[in-house]
């Protein structure tokens, strides 16, 4: 899943017009928490179901941070966790992309938050 998202995001065609994309990948919530303070990220893409902290907790973690609290957040998850998605959005996620998703949808969603970022 991560590799897939990464591949889609790194696709030159995808990145074209968005000023180039550099993707950092975290294998779990904790790793995301480790990565987040260390770089300036234009966008966070997360699932809800993760091995350690869940996506909702990560969203809250991001939103509560003084440093990167404003980073746009996109949730990618299956439709089956509707309630969780609603919560994610309520917690401050900016968009939700249901699994399975197309490259176009991911691009369109991400592009909204990436334009001008670079």
């Amino acid at each position, binding site marked *: *899943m*991560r*590799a*897939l998202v*990464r*591949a889609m995001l790194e696709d030159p065609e995808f990145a074209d017009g968005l000023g180039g994309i550099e993707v950092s990948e975290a294998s779990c919530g*904790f790793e995301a*928490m*480790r990565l987040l*303070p260390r770089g300036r990220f234009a966008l966070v893409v997360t*699932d*809800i*179901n*993760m*091995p*350690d*902290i*869940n*996506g*909702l*907790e*990560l*969203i*809250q*973690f991001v939103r*509560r*941070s003084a440093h990167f609290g404003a980073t746009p957040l996109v949730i990618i998850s*299956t*439709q*089956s*966790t*509707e*309630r*969780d998605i*609603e*919560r994610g959005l*309520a*917690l401050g996620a900016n968009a939700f992309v249901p*699994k*399975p*998703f*197309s*490259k176009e*949808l991911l691009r369109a969603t991400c592009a909204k938050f990436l334009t001008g970022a670079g």
Partner: protein
Amino acid sequence: MVDRDSPGDKAREEFFSEAQEIIDGLSRDLLALDALAKRGQSDAELVNDVFRAVHTLKGLSGLFGAAMMSGLSHELEDLLDDLRLGRIELTQQVLDLLFQAVELYGRILGAAKGDGAEPVEEVKDLLSAMGQVAQQKGGGGAGVVAQYELDPGLLGVLTEYEEHRLRTNLQAGLSLYRLRVVFQLATIDSALDELKAKTRPHGEIITYLPTGEGGDVDSVELEILVASRTPLATLRGALEGPNIAIEEVRRRDAARPDEGQRRDSAFPPPPLTPPNLMGRAPPTGFAPAEAAHLPPIAHDYDDDPHHPTSAPPPPMPSMAPAGPAAVAPGQQAGKEVSLKSVSQTVRVDIRKLDHLMNIVGELAIVRSSLGKLGDRARGRPELRELYGDLQRLHRAFERHLAQMQNGILEVRMVPLGQIFDKLARIVRQISREHDKQVNLVITGAETEIDKLIVEELSDPLMHMIRNAIDHGIEPRDGRMGVGKPVVGTIALNAFQKGNRVVIEVEDDGNGIDWLRIRDLAARRNLISPDEAASMAPTEAINLIFAPGFSTREQANEVSGRGVGMDIVKTNIAKLSGMIDVTTEVGKGTKFSITLPVTLAIIQALVIQSAGHTFCIPLNSVLESIMVETREISTIEGHEVIILNKKTLPLLHLSRLFALRPLSKSYRDPHRVYVVVVGLAQHRVGLVVDELLGQQDVVIKPLGSAVRNVPGIAGATELGANRTVLLLDVGRLVDEGVRQADAAISVGGQGSSVGPGPGGGSGGGNHPGMGGSTHVR
């Protein structure tokens, strides 16, 4: 890693194998629950696992547009949710429904692979039966969470699943503890693992939440919710550390509850669902008090968007490969990781391993060419240095190649437990249908065998188990009449024996009556009256493997599916295996299947007969001897020799395959080579012209021209694109034994073919089973 060109097929394969894996796990858990239920127990963890499996299956099938599976999973998930929240009881009826679901999953999956039709009606029936069960449910402890002093902020970030866990634990009366732990981000994984390990004996971790406080850039404070039966002081003692603060999460009503399950009357009673009143309250009711506390949770119950009628209807027919967006294999993998937590495994298509194995085969050919190159250099003094280098290179190459080969073989191995679990389900089902109580005893489930062999084994084993229950185990009255325990026993044993795996299916039923078998065979004209008259017991019992034989006086639901033991035997033979039966009237029957561990690559003895080259799997070769032609005697037209005081039937490959013998290939008209091959306790001597040596060969599928030639198991290449046929030892041994049997039953006096204590030579592959009637 991600193949962007990946075709839908690949994703489908992934889907099939993952779904199958989940269904297998589901089946295992259900069997465990079934066993517990029989003792009047249950296990919340197991119920949760079942729920999780179905949940994953739902997500997975939804992803692949597998409408039927997704619909079934959806309903099943609801049922299981009710189950784990204690809204309905895990009764035998519910268990039956769950087992049915597993069976239907299997059929749906089968149908998607083009095997059989979709069980449309059955699914409909099951859904309606499940609906009825759901009607019976009582009120759940939906409000239990709200009774605790939990920060709404924390509850707001629990996933649906975590919330369920929390509720389940609280309902079960466990205490809830809040741990605040500061972790260094650099070491959080190991530190958390350590904490988890310390916590596990005491209870369950519900969630980890970063508090956003107390941390700096390098550390983070987590709030960890733990449900446990351990008193606070003990837990503190167990988890103590400089960075940990532990407190109990109290109930809002402050009064010490004596029972977690009961909704406390001090708490504002929900007007809609007094769960203790009727036990039939609709699940939609929701306590307004809770709703006020935690608005989002209400979504859990208050609407029911996926009613059966509105089950997610993907536009495609079920299982059609979804569009390009859905084909990424990584997607499921990601999902699996998230639900099953960390699993360090990858799923690999067995064909990829076949491909690798083929490459190993090619390399083996390169290796032997390298060896030959060395040999050419050896005799030349001016090339001595080159020869030394070549030798070294050759040895290193050989060593690494062997390691690689072993590595690939190891990857192909799976435990037989995989199919044993399925069989356990079948035993349960058939014995219920048949009103026979059967206890299945499994040993050696961890025995490993090639994945492809496992796949091919499930049908034959299933049939043998059906037979054992149907024909073997007597009806209750019959068992009591002869003083046997009412509960019959079927033992499924597996063990490795040298480079072979033996699987036994043993029942304690009434055994096989050879006279009855003989008479039936005669009635069906499988044997002539003369043959019947002179037939030995062992030979008669062997007739159950004859095509067209069936002891069924009337077809019945259990074994009467048109598959006989002949098919079983053929299927086993296709795997280069052999099946034996030992039986004792009144005591029971044991079938033993002897199989190679793998079919992918084998060591072979390369021989020549009538100018043609053949390979014989080395694991069935006991020894190769040179025999003086005068040692060969003839019994009833069949050639035999006496080897180690026992008669060894001989087979001439040239005659068997109707090859014209090349007279000149006999170096010495008075001597022949005999390769003694054996399977299980049987042995036969193959008369060949030349022994060419041993070699590792990679087995390739046969072309249609020779696919059905008896005695040929496969083909392989021996370099220079020379295709060589691999002999089917099982078949040949059969043939030899059959001839010998015929010879003995007609004219034999004093000679005996078959096993004996400490029998035979060289190979040491002798089970030496004694006691009961022995059949080949």
